[in-house]
């Protein structure tokens, strides 16, 4: 790494740490029902939305009602997006006359965008009509992120609730997340991106004649509006197949910097939001520190690996799949942050990373997307580990474990076990099926241990609701589309439902004042213990599989398959 790379690293994380409490405080105003600028501006729109939606903003919901509303809302969104793709050839805004999306691919894509994953088994510019992109995919980019944020604030309310079983109101959380957080941020981001050269138009392509006289068609579209929310909402689904490596999605180092900042912005700010909501900002920053330590540790692996020349090609710098304007450093930083946060957008092709670069991404994925993770989703995922941590700490000193003054019981621990282990079990099961079934192996783009990495990556990405890929794997087959649809749903709802259930079960419980025996959740000891619990639970589960993939490949670097 050069001096400039270190400077870029410092500027990046400096900006993130400065913006986190600002945005956290802003969101706290919104979700604790205080007055704010946007509310006086858009309050009428908000009320009109409730009226048109037939929702009563005063209604309160217990965890089951909250979960039901969320699942139904997401279910309807899924069906609409599915139908939109199947019928895009009959609908307007399809200037390239693209045919209907095949059913298995449409199913996978609808599930993928509804679950905030944005796994893409297709190339956007060659598959999706303009209408599908802006009225289908963009919409779910907003709503899936808003759903994740809603679950997080509901969970926070449950944890601090004194006697009531209410988690708030899903409709108001959803609408406020969209209207006051995601939309204004996206609008500003989109315009900054356009200033850098990101395309934004409703025409779909332009014909050009190159310097040497070759005719070519350049794809256009409403790109900036989608890129802004895909970066901010930890969605990651590119307008173009090459995602943010494509110059029309990410033309300059500056656009790269702000897109990269957008990856972690909301996931980091939600940690501060959570700290404020539960009345201990120190606890929020303790959680932030645990995430940050894990992120830096994995980044170190990736940066070390990518800056080693590849002996198989005479020691060339690792620029395959990377763009000149970003270079190695920005490609690795992006790869690390996009897999830590469950964003999944890429500015370099992960399949062409060195084995250690790929390992960095895979470790981030199999940690269960709790290192910042998805908007809302990362933190409510980490909170399952927090409950587990205080439980283990309680066992070690022989006291009833407590979290935020509430006693942790059998019900909560069962839900924690479901939320942490079920996704991992299915990840390994599905990857194992793909590694032995001919339909799974037929899709491989690389042989040897790298091939296993491709399979592992695919299911880790879908279960973790990340969406990035080792894209050499041809994922657009019935096998991967259908098994993947199941993986996407399990990865989202097997964590989301336990998170709400735990909040629901703790909400009515009494708060006992802290005593000398209470395990403090805002100190270094807690941070260390939490990091260890995350690493041990995920590590024990995945280390054998990772060993056979990227780790063996690293040992064999210089050989070919």
């Amino acid at each position, binding site marked *: 790494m050069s001096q400039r790379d270190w400077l*870029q690293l410092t500027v990046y994380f400096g900006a993130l740490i400065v913006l986190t409490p600002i945005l956290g405080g802003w969101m706290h105003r919104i979700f604790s029902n205080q007055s704010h600028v946007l509310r006086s501006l858009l309050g009428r729109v908000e009320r009109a939305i409730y009226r*048109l*939606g*037939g929702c009563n903003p005063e209604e309160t919901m217990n965890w089951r009602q909250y979960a039901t509303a969320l699942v139904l*809302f997401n279910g309807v969104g899924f069906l609409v997006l599915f139908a939109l793709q199947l019928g895009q050839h009959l609908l307007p805004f399809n200037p390239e006359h693209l045919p209907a999306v095949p059913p298995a691919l449409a199913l996978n894509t609808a599930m993928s965008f509804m679950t905030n994953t944005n796994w893409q088994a297709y*190339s956007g510019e060659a598959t999706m009509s303009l209408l599908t992109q802006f009225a289908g995919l*963009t919409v779910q980019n907003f709503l899936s992120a808003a759903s994740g944020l809603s679950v997080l604030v509901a969970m926070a309310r449950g944890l601090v609730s004194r006697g009531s079983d209410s988690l708030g109101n899903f409709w108001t959380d*959803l*609408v406020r997340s969209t*209207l006051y957080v995601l*939309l204004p941020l*996206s*609008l500003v981001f*989109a315009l900054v991106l*356009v*200033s850098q050269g990101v*395309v*934004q*138009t409703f025409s779909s392509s*332009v014909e*050009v*004649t*190159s*310097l040497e006289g*070759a*005719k070519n*068609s350049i*794809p256009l579209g409403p790109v*900036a*509006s989608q890129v802004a929310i895909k970066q901010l909402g930890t969605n990651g689904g590119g307008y*173009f197949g090459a995602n943010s*490596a494509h*110059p*029309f999605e990410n033309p300059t*180092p500056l656009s790269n*910097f702000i897109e990269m900042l957008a990856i972690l912005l909301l996931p980091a700010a939600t940690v501060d939001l959570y700290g404020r909501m539960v009345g201990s900002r120190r606890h929020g920053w303790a959680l932030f520190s645990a995430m940050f330590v894990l992120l830096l540790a994995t980044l170190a692996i990736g940066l070390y690996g990518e800056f080693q020349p590849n002996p198989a*090609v*005479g*020691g*060339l*710098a*690792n620029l395959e*799949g*990377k*763009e*000149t304007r970003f*270079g190695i450093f*920005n490609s690795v930083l992006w790869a690390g942050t996009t897999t830590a946060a469950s964003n999944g957008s890429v500015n370099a*092709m992960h*399949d062409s990373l*060195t*084995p250690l670069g*790929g390992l960095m991404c895979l470790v981030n994925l199999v940690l269960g997307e709790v290192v910042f993770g998805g908007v809302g989703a990362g933190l409510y995922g980490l909170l399952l580990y927090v409950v587990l941590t205080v439980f283990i700490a309680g066992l070690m000193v022989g006291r009833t474990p407590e979290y935020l003054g509430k006693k942790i019981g059998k019900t909560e621990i069962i839900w924690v076990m479901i939320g942490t282990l079920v996704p991992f079990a299915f990840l390994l099961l599905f990857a194992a099926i793909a590694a032995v079934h001919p339909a799974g192996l037929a899709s491989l*783009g*690389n*042989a040897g*241990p*790298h091939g296993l990495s491709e399979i592992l990556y695919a299911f880790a990405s879908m279960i973790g609701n990340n969406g990035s890929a080792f894209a050499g794997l041809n994922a657009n087959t019935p096998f991967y589309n259908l098994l993947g649809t199941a993986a996407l749903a399990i990865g989202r709802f097997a964590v989301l439902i336990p998170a709400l259930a735990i909040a629901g079960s703790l909400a009515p419980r009494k708060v006992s004042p802290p005593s000398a025996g209470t395990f403090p959740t805002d100190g270094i000891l807690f941070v260390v213990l939490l990091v260890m619990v995350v690493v041990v639970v995920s590590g024990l589960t995945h280390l054998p599989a990772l060993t056979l993939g990227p780790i063996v*490949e690293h040992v064999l670097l210089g050989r*070919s398959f």
Partner: protein
Amino acid sequence: MKPLLQSIRLLLVLTVITGAVYPALVTVLSKSMFPRQSAGSLVVRDRQVVGSALLGQRTTSEAYFWPRPSAGDDGTNYVAVPSSASNKGPTSADWITSVQQRSAAIRTARGMSTNRAVPADLVLASGSGLDPHISPDAARLQLDRVARTRGLNPEQRNTLTQLVEAKVESPTLGVLGEPRVNVLLLNLALDETFPTARR
């Protein structure tokens, strides 16, 4: 049943806001504030659109600077729909062979000895397949060939060197990104400065 109905109605309302009003608003604002950028930063020469300043295009003529290789090279173009990368891993036999072939071709063409390093970006394909840039070293390496093909005298050759150096873009604010040269813009400037050799 009630939450289902509410879901349907709310989705409809939010689709209008996030799926129609929002992209339309961004489009209108972009068009008025950044008309050139929002339309693809197109480059026009002799009333003909020759490409986008942001997208790499295939040039193989000896009289031009060449871009990075692309996984989307179909023999006449770097295909823009869909954009594509090789997605080959660092132990892929196919990939190693093709990189060695590209390196050998460049060494032969430049008369380089095998112990002199070829700029990595000239033999490794980009992530988008449409990378508009090459490294400054990769541009300097091509100076001789372009000068020879265009039949430049030593003085003109100096001008060409200055032209290339002038086209080197530095990291943003001295910090972000990498130094680089936009190949299409360099080639256009080349044609403008030395029009006789244009082909």
